[in-house]
């Protein structure tokens, strides 16, 4: 899908850093960024806030009939992730076979190229998520220090799943 350059530029904070918003009145976080807090409206005090880069898979699917621009990636896994501040976000899951993706798996953000733009438009980048391998089983907490370390225990985890 072709995106105009200004759109790609405007979306940089959101797509590169998961920049959402926080309302200091109701203490809720939101993603995507909202100027108006849906709970407090004019009583809300909204400011920018980066969302946590780690979370848990809430639901997932594998897309086999892609929209134009995604043909070369198909089939690809897509998930709704509940971030550690309870905000949910939709993203692709990368760097792992479909069989390893489970509801409850811990994931962490990756920065990737998104879509397959034609040669005339700019390349867009954004967040995708990868499994935190050491804790791919449902309930294990996320050791965030290990998040980027490739794990070797994947076979055992996959067999269990």
């Amino acid at each position, binding site marked *: *899908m072709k*995106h105009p350059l200004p*759109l790609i530029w405007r*979306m940089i904070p*959101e797509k590169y850093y998961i920049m959402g918003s926080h309302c200091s009145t109701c203490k809720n976080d*939101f993603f*995507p960024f909202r100027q108006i807090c849906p709970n407090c409206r004019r009583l809300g005090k909204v400011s920018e806030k980066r969302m946590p880069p780690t979370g848990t898979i*809430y*639901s*997932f*699917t*594998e*897309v*086999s*009939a*892609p*929209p*134009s*621009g*995604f*043909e070369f*990636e198909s*089939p*690809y896994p*897509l*998930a*709704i992730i509940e971030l550690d501040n309870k905000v*949910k*976000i*939709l*993203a*692709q899951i990368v760097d792992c076979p479909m069989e390893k993706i489970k*509801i409850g798996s811990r994931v962490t953000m990756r920065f990737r190229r*998104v*879509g397959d733009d034609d040669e005339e438009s700019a390349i*867009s980048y*954004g967040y*995708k998520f990868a499994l935190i391998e050491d804790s791919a089983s449902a309930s294990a907490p996320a050791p965030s220090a290990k998040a980027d370390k490739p794990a070797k225990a994947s076979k055992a985890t996959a067999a269990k799943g």
Partner: protein
Amino acid sequence: MRGVSIIGGGLSKFGERWDKSFRDLVVEAGTAAVIDAGIEGREIQAIYGGCMSSGRLVGQEHVGALFADFLGLNPIPATRCEAACASGGVALRAGFLAVASGMYDVVAVGGVEKMTDFDSADVAIALGGAGDMEHELFFGATFPALYALMARRHMLEYGTTEEMMASCSVKNHKNAVHNIYAQYRNEITIEDVMNSGYIASPLKLLDCSPITDGAAAVILCASEKAKKFRKDPVEIIASSQASDTISLSNRHCMTELHATKVAAADAYRHARLTPKDIDVAEVHDCFSIAEIMAIEDLGFFEKGKGGPASLEGLTALNSEISINTSGGLKATGHPVGATGIKQAVEIMWQLQGRADKRQVNDAEIGMTHNVGGSGATAVVNIYKRL
């Protein structure tokens, strides 16, 4: 507000209409509705037209004016209404409000979509605009994918199975055998659905409504004047609409469409009825899981019981409640702008006893349920013979 009734309705044949253009389809359905109502074109005072994506697909915008022009109804006001797959539903409600307010006595409401001329990957982009373009479609989320994400949660939370979902498609194909306007009039089995390839797991090809060309139209009239035109008008006794977050991920709960629940509660309150009073309903089965969630959210079955109820046949023709007698979106086809109006035409036929071999016995109260996007818009109407 005064009462509003449907005095006539008509459909174009749904399907791959390569022989017909966007405007041809409008004329086919519009003419059928006018003839059915037994009125003259000059008695129509305004037009409301539902259409989602003519600009993106056909390249044609300004379709309100196109409707008026090619139906030969200039210079009456004509307005396009858009709410993704609920475009027909909101157009119908706009017409309802225009008559209920006393502004007009007779209005025409139509819906149309021309979709099969185009590559399915491009149609996926057009339909993807019904969700949050910047946060769903941007990452390759198609509509089957969004409903698949809901299906996966429904399976986890309530034990709904792929067979239960498949049974909705099987039942809808069975109903469509008797609908001459339907795109698919062949019966299918649960095995057929289970063996059709994945589109977005766990949803398979036969869990998904097809890409369709089609149009639908109804003529609305103030109830106090409706019997001048025909002896059996069908009154819209409630028309309710609700909104929810544009993106699926912002919902608190993904095993229901909250907008459906809000609109349904409002419609039941206005009509002073309960779910038990509904004899026949056309619900928005864009995907099989959507039918299961709809029959729960509309109150016909308890949350989580929609899957087993479908598998047990409780939603079949003349069972506990007859759901999607037309064949639903799955088998009649889903020309997105037309669907909300097509549902109203089917309910009109049911309440008038004109539904042929798919007639629900003693149907007195009917309902339509039309959804836009992944549930960001829902329109629920209740109907009764005047």
